[in-house]
């Protein structure tokens, strides 16, 4: 049995919990509520459904969904919700967690074994949670002579960079954290952070294996950035915009992968390299350089880097979907919201509950999200698949591939796009 707290007693634990609650209530009622009242003098509260939102209505809101939902709806339109929950961090982290689980199970099936099995009873579904608990309760060992501030900051910065990448991904019409005109260029800018964070982490550890791994990561990410940039130029040429939402919207009738398959292939390969996935996992090649630039990271620092990696994985897969597979576009499969719930209310025996604020999500958004997730999961599957099939390649082979072959193919893709535009197949007067 693992020991987190060796002298653990349930009764004392409960006692401490009750103590905490009592103290919290006391402090809240003596200091917290007066403070809130004072702040409320200066902060104007929103008026929702013709009613001023005050803290005193809190209990009423809890009991009455028709009053709560408008608040939720109002909250959902704020930037904070987008950042924290839906198209932003929470959504991406959830998908990333799902990816980790699927990867482990899928790889296990490929390799004729069972994979995570016991944790969580059903096919080891809680394995990730167990791993998270393990990582968070493990000791963090900082190597001597490491550059401590940078070493601590690097994992957090890695996650933050990945999150900034996620911010640019449009999930459904209007559902994007940062709807910017130069979206694609912003993506390139954010991708540029990763090698910097990696080399910072590797350099600060003052250890040889992370150092070599960091340099490898630098070479790999940096030299695959040019094929990446060039392979996406074709899409930009035929759409005439850099805004990711507009690119996604432009594929309402057909996805660009039909016309620009070469660009899609090049982008997919560069994606694998940028993500350090097998066969391009050179920066973490365990049989050569232990764990590469992750060697000195322990406990939760490693956990954060893993989280960042999978956020990045999701973001890249989503970018592929947005650019080549039509983003959220797809046939309408979500049934329309039954409007009688709003107009007539729900009849629960004698009581008829009228719920204002419904529907929370419109049909278009649900449908878009559904197709987006479906396509993203498909792309993620193809990103995961090579891990079961290919061995790792070498640095020189990797650089040779990136600089000689992929860049050539990316140029081919540019000329295909140019030809399509000038032949009148795409662009104004074309198919679209």
């Amino acid at each position, binding site marked *: 049995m693992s020991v987190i707290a060796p002298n653990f007693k349930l009764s004392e634990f409960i006692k401490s919990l009750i103590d905490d609650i009592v103290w919290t209530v006391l402090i809240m009622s003596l200091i917290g509520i007066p403070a809130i009242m004072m702040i409320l003098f200066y902060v104007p509260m929103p008026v929702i459904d013709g009613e001023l939102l005050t803290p005193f209505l809190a209990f009423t809101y809890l009991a009455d969904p028709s009053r709560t939902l408008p608040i939720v709806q109002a909250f959902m339109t704020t930037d904070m919700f987008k950042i924290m929950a839906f198209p932003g961090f929470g959504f991406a982290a959830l998908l990333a967690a799902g990816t980790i689980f699927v990867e482990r199970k899928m*790889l296990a099936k*490929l*390799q*004729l*074994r069972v994979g995570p099995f016991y944790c969580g009873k059903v096919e080891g579904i809680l394995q990730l949670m167990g791993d998270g608990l393990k990582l968070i309760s493990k000791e963090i060992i900082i190597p001597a002579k490491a550059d401590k501030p940078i070493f601590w900051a690097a994992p957090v910065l890695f996650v933050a960079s990945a999150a900034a990448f996620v911010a640019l991904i449009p999930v459904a019409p209007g559902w994007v954290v940062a709807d910017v005109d130069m979206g694609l260029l912003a993506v390139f800018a954010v991708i540029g952070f990763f090698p910097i964070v990696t080399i910072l982490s590797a350099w600060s550890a003052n250890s*040889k*294996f992370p150092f*070599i791994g960091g340099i490898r990561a630098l070479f790999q990410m940096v030299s695959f950035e040019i094929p990446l940039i060039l392979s996406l130029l074709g899409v930009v040429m035929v759409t005439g915009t850099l805004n990711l939402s507009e690119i996604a919207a432009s594929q309402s009738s057909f996805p660009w992968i039909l016309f620009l398959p070469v660009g899609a292939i090049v982008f997919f390969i560069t994606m694998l390299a940028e993500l350090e996935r*097998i*066969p391009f*996992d*050179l920066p973490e*090649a*365990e*049989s*050569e*350089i*232990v764990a590469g630039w992750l060697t000195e990271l322990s406990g939760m620092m490693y956990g954060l880097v893993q989280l960042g990696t999978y956020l990045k994985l999701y973001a890249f897969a989503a970018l592929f979907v947005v650019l080549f597979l039509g983003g959220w576009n797809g046939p309408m499969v979500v049934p329309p919201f039954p409007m009688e719930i709003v107009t007539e209310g729900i009849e629960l025996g004698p009581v008829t509950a009228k719920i204002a604020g419904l529907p929370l999500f419109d049909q278009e958004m649900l449908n878009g999200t559904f197709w987006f997730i479906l396509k993203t999961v498909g792309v993620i599957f193809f990103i995961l698949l090579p*891990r*079961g*099939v*290919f*061995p*790792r*390649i*070498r*640095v*020189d*082979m990797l650089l040779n591939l990136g600089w000689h072959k992929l860049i050539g193919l990316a140029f081919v893709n540019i000329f295909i796009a140019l030809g399509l535009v000038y032949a009148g197949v795409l662009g104004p007067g074309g198919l679209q």
Partner: protein
Amino acid sequence: MTNELPPGLAIQKVDERIMTLNVGPQHPGSGHMRIIVQIDGDYIVACDPDPGYVHRGEEKMAEYRNYITNIPHLERPVIHDSCNVLYPYVLGVEELLGIEVPERAKYVRVICSELNRCIYIMYWLAIYGIFLGHSTMFMWPAGDRELLIDLMEKISGARVTHAHFVPGGVRNDLPPNFEEVCLRQVNYFEKRIKEYAAVFYDNPILISRTENTGVLSREDAIRLGTTGSVLRASGVDYDLRIKEPYDVYEELDVHSPVMKEGDSYARSKIPWLDMLESCNIIKQALQKMPKSGSVRVKLKPNPKGKGLDSVYKRVESGRGSLGCHIVSDGKVEPYRLKLSVGSFRNLIALPYLLKGEKLGNMPSVYWSLNYWPVEADR
């Protein structure tokens, strides 16, 4: 030597640029040994293998035990290949004591030996796979080994350390019905390992990665005294099962695979071809084996050698020729026992193969030497 530094490294002999890396002993790519590599950028300029991390003094221990009690601990160097490690010792003791082995026991020994060779190579292949980052090739052989381990468990009662060979034969007769079970499992095993070609040996990335890396020429392979798959991958057709047949290998049709390239790819493919050949040998042996008969000559307790005498016996193990030099002085214990193991002999090639090689090739070249650290350390 064969592998000169690539041009351009000649000017890079400045000490500051050269980084000394301790690869091992606690390294996922080293096994239980240390390779001190000096790298200049991506190239290895010098390499110094440092075995001995798991040195147990088997040879010293053997001087304190009598000929029979030596059996269980002499198979320890390679527990996956335990029958083959024990084989030369048992042959040597038989020659020292002048024992004639029954015919059926010889066949049982050959079957056990070939099964063990496959078990060892599967384990080796699993590690070769994971060294190249091919995790499927790690899991598949590790799982398919179980087929043959089950067979060996049926024969000897133990999964890996069998201690089944004794001077004068084998410990037990085969279990009833063994021939059919063995044939079925071996047939399935053969079908299974043929599938590895699709996922591993024909994999374009693997081929481009291991071809022309760590090339050991025929002359150097002979000069360095390498053995086993390393030697045969360099084009020297030398297999003790054919050249100096022991027990009943003379009566069996053995075709040892030979390749000419001498690179990591050839060195990694030879053991796989060996496994297919082993399956073939097992099937032949099952056919030709006498259906009944004694499998062991009773020895008198505490057998002794005849005065000052020495014997050198060798067999073809999973890693090549495995010799056992026993010096007896007429006592119940061997006076001196020396195992000349394939791993140790192949290790000498490592510095020459790695010099001028890229760091990324280190695991593949190193493990393609069919090196088993525990055996080399003894």
